[in-house]
């Protein structure tokens, strides 16, 4: 039954031809990003030039570029930006990991138990509508002025999307498959781990991507509110000194960090949901 005939090279070519992609699919992503970026910068430049908006409100691309060069130069020569970036990175990574752990756990409790859905869910939602800023003093009181309180703030802000998406994913499980597991007398935990969680992976990864992004925000909020030594603090100082170009440059650096974590989660997702075509 095996097809152990030697494969004709023409077949390989035809197969590759079948799998050929459109122009845009073949264009490398960096090029597309660059092109789109060029468009954005052009619009930005025009907006600044023709709207006559003050540089103190919206700096032009050129000014931001200058500040960006300064910032990157400082970063790579190991200046204060390097120190701040390192601190922020550590906070973001730990914040994200903590958020993922909390989010998955809560999501499972809410998605898999009636008690969780009915009694705990409203509290989780309520906590999340609360302005986190108000909790900053509590976090500082409990975790001090060091990176711990920023990590907690980041986790606190970003666990929620993981929770909601995990819960939604668990609830979406295919009913035929549920019946299969029921017939196998799978207990709740087995159904959760072997059916619902794998089925929910696309949901969970959407949540993790959100958490990656919000971790950065959380760290910045934590530093804004409770002092710190990271990029958030640099942004705050620059903003209070009305160095708006510098603010934008440092924000770009923060975005880059967020994009990296996001990209990392995307890679993980590719690995884990490769069973989907």
């Amino acid at each position, binding site marked *: 039954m095996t097809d152990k005939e030697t494969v004709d090279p023409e077949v390989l070519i035809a197969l590759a031809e079948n799998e050929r992609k459109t122009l845009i699919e073949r264009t490398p992503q960096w090029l597309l990003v660059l092109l789109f970026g060029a468009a954005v910068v052009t619009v930005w430049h025009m907006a600044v030039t023709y709207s006559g908006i003050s540089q*103190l*409100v919206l700096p032009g691309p050129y000014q931001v570029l200058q500040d960006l060069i300064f910032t990157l130069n400082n970063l790579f020569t190991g200046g204060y930006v390097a120190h701040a970036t390192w601190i922020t990175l550590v906070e973001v990574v730990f914040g994200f990991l903590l958020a993922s752990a909390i989010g998955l756990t809560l999501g499972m409790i809410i998605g898999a138990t009636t008690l969780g859905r009915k009694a705990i869910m409203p509290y989780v939602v309520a906590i999340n509508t609360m302005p986190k800023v108000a909790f*900053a*003093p509590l976090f*500082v009181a409990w975790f001090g*002025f060091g990176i711990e309180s920023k990590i907690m703030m980041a986790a606190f802000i970003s666990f929620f999307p993981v929770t909601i998406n995990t819960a939604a994913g668990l609830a979406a499980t295919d009913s035929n498959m549920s019946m299969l597991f029921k017939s196998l007398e799978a207990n709740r935990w087995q159904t959760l781990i072997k059916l619902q969680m794998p089925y929910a992976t696309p949901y969970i990864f959407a949540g993790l991507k959100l958490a990656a992004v919000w971790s950065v925000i959380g760290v910045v909020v934590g530093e804004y509110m409770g002092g710190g030594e990271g990029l958030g603090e640099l942004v705050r100082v620059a903003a*209070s*000194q009305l*160095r708006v170009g510098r603010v934008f440059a440092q924000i770009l650096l923060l975005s880059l960090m967020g994009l990296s974590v996001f990209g990392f989660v995307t890679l993980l997702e590719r690995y884990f949901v490769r069973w989907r075509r």
Partner: protein
Amino acid sequence: QELKQVTVVLPGSSAMAWYPMIVAQQRGFFEEEGLEVTIKSLDGSGAVLQAMEAGRAEFGAPGPGPVLNAVARGADVKFFYNLFSRGLFVLAGDRNDGIESAEGLRGTQIGVSTADGAEVSFARSALASVGVEPDEYKFVTIGQEGMAVTAFDRDTIHAFAASFTGIAVLKDRGVDVIDLTPEGLDLFGNGLAVRGEIYRDNPEMVAGFAKAIHKATKWGMENPEGVLEDGETYNPQEVERREYARALLDTVNQQYAPIGDNALGYLPESGWNAWHKSLLETGELDAAIEDLSVVYTNEFVENLEAK
């Protein structure tokens, strides 16, 4: 006669700290000058200056430090009236720490709040005035006043530089703070600024605004109960507890009082020089401003006193 619509932005929402605007609005002093004023509040002087630059407001109440920064970066504003002649900031310590004066802060950490960058300049100057050098202490950003409670508890800081309203709040909530601010600092606080364009094209309007504020300040110093009443229209929550509001208003009036024989609202040159020097030392300003008189003017205050 038709009223001119103008907006003034404040860097905070306290009705007591910024009562002249509210009183002038409520008591019709603006109207007498042909102005209909909308009062808006933002968070910090930076935001105030940005809103003015964006053309969203004609007037604002920024601090002198941020104004110097803004002008150095190309902003077009004119500072024309001094509100907090005696400064906006206080250096406060925890009585339990046993530190009694600013000299005692050598080798400690000093907390600064986040509302504005100006308290850093202030604290530096204050400590320099008693001979404590910048390398003898460290600043920690601790955020809002509430954090100070924890920071003192944890001995993270031994002093806290913040606006006097923040310190008043701490006192009011029973935190045992002690004032460590040295005497004789030239660093005055927030005042009124106008967009340069309006100053040049429409000086009568600025004069009218200054006149109304002047009148309101004087009125308020004599009618604290009236101020409380007016304040309710702007920030009801603040005035809810009368004793607190009254105490706060007292402090505000103390800080408003001009130094020496200066007229109410007068902007002393020595103060501007002190700010300029301080900003250069901390590196906030990259280069010196040649002529400080482009930043401010006393012409309206002088006219007021002439009458």
